[in-house]
């Protein structure tokens, strides 16, 4: 994770890195390793910021991850694209919440509740 320079990577490469990070976060949760999860979260935030700053908002590159078989990757991608593809992203989050695949289903449920209550305003 060290030394990632998002500006040097293509959209597709950043999306791939984002997916690998989601898989690693999924494993970190199973190992009760919140420190590792949070380190990866910071890197994913950099990736999102980089994509968002590119012409036309390149976060759309993450939409391809909606079909990823890892639930954490799907959840991360859907939450990161809520502001650019609200309906599609929400459907993904609804699917994850109803999948009962925990812990991702739990966080997805919290996400829907916070969206509906106006407590979470995606940017």
């Amino acid at each position, binding site marked *: 994770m060290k030394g990632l320079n998002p500006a040097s990577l293509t959209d597709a490469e950043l999306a791939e890195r984002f997916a690998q990070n989601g898989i690693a976060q999924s*494993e970190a*949760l*199973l*190992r*009760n*390793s*919140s420190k590792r*999860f*949070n380190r990866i*979260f*910071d890197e994913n*935030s950099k990736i999102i910021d980089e994509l968002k700053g590119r012409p036309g908002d390149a976060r759309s590159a993450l939409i391809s991850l909606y079909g990823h*078989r*890892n639930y954490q990757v799907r959840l991360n991608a859907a*939450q*990161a694209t809520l502001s650019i593809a609200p309906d599609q992203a929400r459907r993904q989050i609804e699917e994850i*919440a109803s999948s*009962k*695949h*925990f*812990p991702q*289903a*739990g*966080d*997805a*449920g*919290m*996400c829907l*509740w*916070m969206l509906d209550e106006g*407590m*979470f305003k*995606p940017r």
Partner: protein
Amino acid sequence: MEAQIRNYEISLSRLSYHAAALHVLLAGRRIQWLLRKANFHPDEPRVPAGNPDGGQWTTIGGGSYRLPSGARVTRVGDRPHLFRLRPGMLDEDDDLPGFEDFPDIPIVRPRHATDRHSIVRRIPMAPFVGRPAGTLPRKLEEIGAPAWLREYYPHIDAYTQGPELQAGARSSRPGYDIHHIVEKTPALEEGFPKSLVNGPDNLVSIPRFKHWEITGWYQTKNPKFESISPRMFLTKGDWQARRMIGMKALKYYGVLQ
């Protein structure tokens, strides 16, 4: 002369004592060596003696391991020390995609708890399990899953129970933890009274793995909480706000309906 003989007798007696002690020590060392050679793990769960399904020793991959009676060891490529859960083993209707992602389970109990937990916590989530509430441990026995999983059967069983049962009890049971709806340590640090934090209205008995999931959620950074953890976000929150979030977490993590 008599005194000299007496001294010799005392010396002989001491020598005999030391020789006996040395003998016992060497016997102990030999037992330790034999146990190590046999790959014996004293903290590994065992089938009680006299049980018709009692464990047996077998040889896999050059070492001796204890397997449940009737265990089928599935060769995983060139790694015969692994057990593979496959579709059809736990549920007849398990042709759902995703089972290929399930990790192989080591026959021998992993030394580190985090390694064990990352395997065990996936079992009730496996897409081919079919969520057979309350029956999963029995099924794992039937298919000859590695014996070390037995210490986690109460946790797996608790996890697959319905939400009503999960929230029903307030006392500690195997596989369950007492969970604070409003997180205990941050609340005490913020000066909320102990009587409130540890009061019966703030406690619920939930499956241990659910307890870990919710605690993990509180500890990890989240885009919905300004990219800090819910625990940090709620630091200045009042009791009602904390309780609302705590109750929603129980709901969406499948503990309460």
